[in-house]
């Protein structure tokens, strides 16, 4: 086997494995080095296993709502080990699928940790080790770093694997904590809070900012907070979590907030307070690659400061989302292949939170649009006025659109409610294709669907909605 390739990809997550597949499609010889598992965090410890858990918890919730639908069942119960088992087996299955795709695409895979070890002529060298022992050294003119990221550890809030959980422990519980504190209210924290609340835990969310889901439009944050509180969660914003005092099987702490001091004792704590890039021990020292606050600095085509070295996905910075990683993979590889891909427009990347209710958005929030100097037209449409949502028993929801008043550009769209993660792509297409309100209004939406709220929220920003 030759040790020279057209492209070496380091990391087999949704960034790396997609880069390898696309490069192979374009006729390159590709090596993919993965230290742990194909599919990366996304398939093994992120997107997919959490969606499996959330599905179980949604059904659990519905079982308790059966009466609303004229149904009844006795002795509703669950087996947590089976719920977790299902989630793990789905993760395994998806990871296996990736291995198969890579094999079919004739990507040469290496099991080990990769590290840049300088140039040999035009090529970059990558040394591979497994458990500290050297495996081999390979080289290529192009190297894509897709090493991903991990949860941030804050001093005093370090995860310990037993009482204080990171995402991995939180998705493999052996028993359901009766009382749970979730620190951090980004998508990951909120999804775990939602899962455990649906399963019956008492959940408290502590968020240092003055609202939850800080990336979302404030109106959507507020609607989410209201919905979660209605479900019985306690939400503390502007929260400063004091030292975590661990005893044998519980943790107590004091949370300070503008509303005063709260003493809290819980069984488990989930820490979801941000992300740091996996930039260590990659051989970046002595290269022109720049690292800014644990993330590799790249340009619109994912190029680093070092010619021939690229970084994509979580290690290249926010937003830390699988679809962003995969999209960067494609454009980076196409650029290497001499095609003319378009750089990724950050405001065209949708963000989704798969809690109950779901949250999804793309583009600018109303306040950010105004801060950017736009005169805006805002449309809103609530689920309660949508026939399908009422028929489904999913009346808690809102779609909000933000348009530029002068040009009709869709600046942003913000949604909360059932199925919105499946619907947001409609607005993403509108933004990517630079449609205006005219085309959205012109579009025929099928009836009855919850998607009709997207049409109405556009009408609401201009001529006025029909059904309210």
């Amino acid at each position, binding site marked *: 086997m030759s040790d020279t390739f057209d492209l070496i990809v380091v990391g087999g997550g949704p960034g790396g494995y997609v880069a390898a597949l696309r490069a192979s499609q374009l006729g390159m010889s590709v090596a993919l080095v993965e230290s742990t598992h194909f599919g990366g965090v996304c398939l093994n410890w992120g997107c997919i296993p959490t969606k499996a858990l959330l599905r179980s918890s949604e059904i659990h919730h519905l079982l308790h709502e059966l009466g609303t639908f004229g149904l009844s069942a006795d002795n509703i119960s669950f087996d947590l080990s089976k719920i977790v088992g299902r989630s793990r087996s789905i993760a395994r299955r998806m990871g296996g699928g990736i291995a198969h795709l890579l094999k079919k695409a004739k990507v040469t895979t290496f099991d080990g940790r990769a590290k840049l070890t300088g140039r040999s002529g035009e090529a970059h060298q990558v040394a591979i080790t497994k458990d500290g022992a050297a495996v081999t050294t390979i080289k290529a003119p192009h190297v894509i770093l897709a090493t991903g990221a991990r949860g941030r550890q804050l001093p005093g809030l370090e995860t310990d694997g037993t009482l204080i959980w990171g995402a991995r422990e939180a998705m493999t519980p052996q028993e359901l904590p009766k009382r749970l504190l979730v620190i951090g209210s980004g998508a990951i924290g909120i999804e775990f809070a939602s899962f455990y609340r649906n399963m019956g835990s008492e959940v408290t969310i502590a968020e240092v900012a003055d609202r939850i889901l800080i990336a979302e439009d404030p109106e959507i944050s507020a609607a989410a907070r209201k919905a979660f509180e209605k479900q019985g969660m306690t939400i503390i914003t502007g929260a400063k979590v004091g030292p975590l005092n661990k005893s044998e099987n519980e943790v107590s702490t004091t949370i300070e907030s503008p509303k005063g001091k709260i003493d809290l004792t819980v069984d488990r704590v989930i820490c979801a307070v941000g992300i740091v890039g996996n930039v260590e021990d990659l051989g970046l020292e002595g290269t022109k690659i720049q690292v800014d606050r644990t993330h590799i600095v790249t340009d619109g085509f994912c190029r680093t400061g070092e010619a021939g070295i690229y970084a994509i996905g979580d290690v290249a910075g926010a937003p830390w989302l699988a679809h962003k990683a995969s999209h960067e993979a494609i454009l980076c590889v196409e650029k290497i292949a001499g095609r003319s891909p*378009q750089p990724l427009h950050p405001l065209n990347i949708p963000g989704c939170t798969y809690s109950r209710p779901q949250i999804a958005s793309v583009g600018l929030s109303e306040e950010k649009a105004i801060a950017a100097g736009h005169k805006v037209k805002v449309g809103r449409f609530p689920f309660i006025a949508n026939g399908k949502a009422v028929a489904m028993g999913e009346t808690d929801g809102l779609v909000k659109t933000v348009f530029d008043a*002068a*040009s*009709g*550009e869709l600046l942003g769209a913000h949604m909360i409610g059932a199925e919105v993660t499946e619907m947001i792509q409609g607005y993403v297409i509108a933004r990517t*294709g*630079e*449609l*205006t*309100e*005219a*085309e959205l*209004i012109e579009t025929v939406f099928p009836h009855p669907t919850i998607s009709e709220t997207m049409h109405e929220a556009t009408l609401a920003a201009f001529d006025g909605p029909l059904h309210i």
Partner: protein
Amino acid sequence: MATDILMPALSPTMTEGKLARWLKAEGDTVSAGDVIAEIETDKATMEVEAVDEGILGRILIQEGVEGIPVNTPIAILVEDGEAVPDASSEQAAAAPKAETASAETTPAARAAKAPAEDKGERIFVSPLARRMAHERGIALDALTGSGPNGRILKRDVEKGPAAPKTAPKAAATPVITASEETVRRVPNSTMRKVIARRLTESKTQVPHFYVSIDIELDALLALRSKLNAAAQENSFKISVNDMMIKAVALALKKVPGVNVQFTDAETLHFENVDISMAVSIPDGLITPIIRNADRKSLRDISVEAKDLAKRARAGKLKPEEFQGGTFSVSNMGMFGVRDFAAIINPPQAGILAIASGEKRAVVRGSEIAVATVMTATLSVDHRAVDGALGAEWLNALRDIVQNPYFLVV
């Protein structure tokens, strides 16, 4: 009733063309069969005939507009005494009451009017960019699209027109940065664009290699003089080019491995030998075909080649007269060049570049003699033909040219 005259498809592969010239003016009466306009496609100029009779009511696409998709309305034919509509029936249907709606109040109404600016040329533009350009009074064809497939996006409108309005088609990246006054900008003709595209495609996608050979011409020239002297009353006059076409055709018969075409799945071997001969015409070149050149007499080839060249220069070739061909010959013998290499004309696999015959010193045994020698260079597609085969073919060609009785028996 008013009917639209549509941009015709003049060959099966034609997707767009340029309106070269109107031969009738608005108000002229036309009968079926009248030539009303000339259309320039990638290879030739062709005539558009009227199918119906009537009066040419309105010309929708002016002379000189390029890239008009097939089936675009180019004019409106009306009956005597009938009022002439402003727009084609198609456009009228597309933009109904935009004009009458309380004008300019809603953005949607403003956007609906914008297509009228396009002058018939298809411009890829996002709805948002179209509206913003309209509002800022920027003509779309003054913008350079940076989106997928050159689509004009919001950012392109924000950046504004790339070049002065007088030269809207200027290249996105100027080749030279001299001040505007010292540059004369000549818009590329459809033919220039096609030459650019096809030859770039050939040079970047077809792995060329080149083999040259020196061929002595004295015997061939002597034969040519005798043949032409025998012609009565100038009934024909065979040129060196005619003889070379025949020689090339015979060589392809003798070494058929060069009369091929490469495709990803298979290599096509042709029974027929159809020689494309490069003819330079005012704005570029075109390659009319002498079909079955191996089976035609020199006289037939000569007559046919003259006729094709003449009609090529007049832009009057029919598509089938220049499309196809299994091998090309490019002859620059009349320009006094010593040798040159030609670019393969895809999907063909080979082209022979013929330079000038000149007196050169040649060594025979151990004597130096003077002979008329010509250097011929074969360019071949290495995917289909290997070096040894190319050399074998050139030797066969030399053999035929130096023993020219092959050409007449």
